[in-house]
């Protein structure tokens, strides 16, 4: 082995990265060559100096900044990225989707008079009127079935608004399944899950006509429905300042020996559940009238000793 051949392998010798066929002759050469042995020593010390370099540490807060940058975008942004198509494709698709949603909503409302009534009572919208032209149905049968099924829903209206809406939603879901006008939720086996999914499915169906389908609004309405179902009295209180009204109610409850059972606030309504002593009931209705426009949905003739009230406070 020549000195040049030996020196080209000295680094690998230090790193024990040579096979026995290379290492043997190299070690034999180094043992006999003073210059190569000296070279190997210098190289060994150079590597030792390199190994002595203090490690670098990432700046403080670096990991947090990386984690913040990697935090997943909201689902609609990810969807937007996934669907990033050229405008020439996107615009017609968007137009078609909008048209389809409009037709589906109009079709659903046409088939369900109860939903139309609910939409008018809660928040009238120019998009939903009696004069709206019904869209063509895929077959005649679903429309007839819808009319037939609306009767039980009408009968049950007397039993409370919350129950009404849940039943209407169930009917609406069933009708939609038949008409194939919109995707239906997967069937659930447990009865309570079924009711929940029916209410959940009905809310988005009504939303586009009234408020542009805000998920939090739908959630708050579902919460209101559940609360109203358990209450003796339920209704809407339309006020100019939701927070002020809530404070007024809290003070009233404290003054009359009532109690606040639950409270939840959504984008469109705050739902407060209270118990009021029957003795203070007439004073409570005056208080409600003072706070805003009170529209009871349910108020039995006979009140229990502690009246459970579910209020949906809307600005």
């Amino acid at each position, binding site marked *: 082995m020549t000195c040049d051949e030996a020196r080209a392998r000295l680094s690998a010798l230090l790193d024990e990265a040579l096979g026995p066929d290379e290492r043997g002759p190299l070690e034999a050469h180094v043992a006999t060559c003073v210059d190569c042995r000296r070279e190997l020593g210098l190289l060994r010390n150079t590597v030792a100096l390199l190994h002595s370099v203090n490690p*670098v540490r990432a700046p403080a807060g670096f990991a947090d900044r990386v984690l913040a940058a990697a935090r997943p975008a909201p689902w609609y942004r990810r969807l937007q990225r996934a669907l990033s198509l050229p405008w020439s494709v996107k615009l017609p698709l968007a137009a078609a989707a909008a048209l389809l949603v409009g037709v589906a909503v109009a079709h659903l409302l046409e088939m369900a008079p109860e939903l139309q009534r609910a939409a008018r009572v809660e928040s009238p919208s120019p998009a939903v009127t009696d004069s709206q032209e019904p869209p063509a149905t895929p077959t005649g049968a679903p429309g007839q079935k819808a009319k037939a099924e609306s009767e039980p829903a009408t009968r049950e209206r007397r039993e409370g608004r919350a129950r009404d809406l849940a039943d209407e939603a169930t009917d609406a879901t069933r009708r939609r399944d038949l008409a194939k006008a919109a995707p239906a939720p997967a069937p659930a086996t447990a009865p309570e899950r079924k009711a929940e999914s029916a209410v959940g499915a009905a809310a988005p169906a009504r939303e586009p006509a009234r408020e542009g389908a805000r998920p939090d609004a739908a959630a708050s309405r579902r919460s209101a429905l559940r609360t109203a179902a358990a209450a003796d009295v339920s209704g809407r209180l339309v006020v100019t300042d939701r927070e002020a009204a809530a404070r007024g109610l809290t003070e009233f409850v404290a003054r009359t020996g009532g109690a606040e059972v639950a409270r939840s606030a959504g984008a469109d309504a705050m739902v407060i559940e209270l118990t009021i002593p029957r003795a203070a009931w007439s004073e409570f209705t005056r208080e409600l009238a003072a706070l805003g426009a009170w529209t009871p949905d349910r108020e039995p003739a006979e009140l229990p000793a502690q009246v459970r009230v579910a209020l949906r406070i809307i600005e």
Partner: protein
Amino acid sequence: MDRRTSDDSHLVDRLRRGDARAFDELVTAYQHRVFSVALRMLRNRTEAEEVAQEVFLRVYRTVTAFRGDAKLSTWLYAIASRLCLNRLASSDRRVTREGDEALTRLASGDATPVDELERSELEATLHRAIAELPEERRIVVVLRDLEGLSYEEIAAALDLELGTVRSRLHRARMDLKEKLERFLP
């Protein structure tokens, strides 16, 4: 399979499943090593942080495509090396390189003032010597002598033949030996 490789393999599985804590653990475990490579190569802290962050974001986005036939650390070093070399090759790179003193300040110990002075002189010379190496030799010596990768890992990370890794490393060390001669016993 050693413990670290086994842990890394488990970490990769969790990353693939979208486990948010797994990514947190990955960044915590590898942030210093990835940043170190970026700083040694780019010699600018801001730029090094940008590149190191991009390394982790790429891992986050592409972990499902990671085949797992290389170690997780090798994959991270591969991404870091490629991003650094690309940036160095970029014609519109206009960042200011920080002085070697600034790089020396990165490392601080508990040495006495005299030791510190000698140490800082040595460190400054070392950093300057490493920084002056051609990029393709510098990345090999950084991965081998500062980060402790094996020849095989370097070959995998840089997509080079083993013989090329060996010769580049040897040339890099010979360059450094000349520049560090006065510190050698």
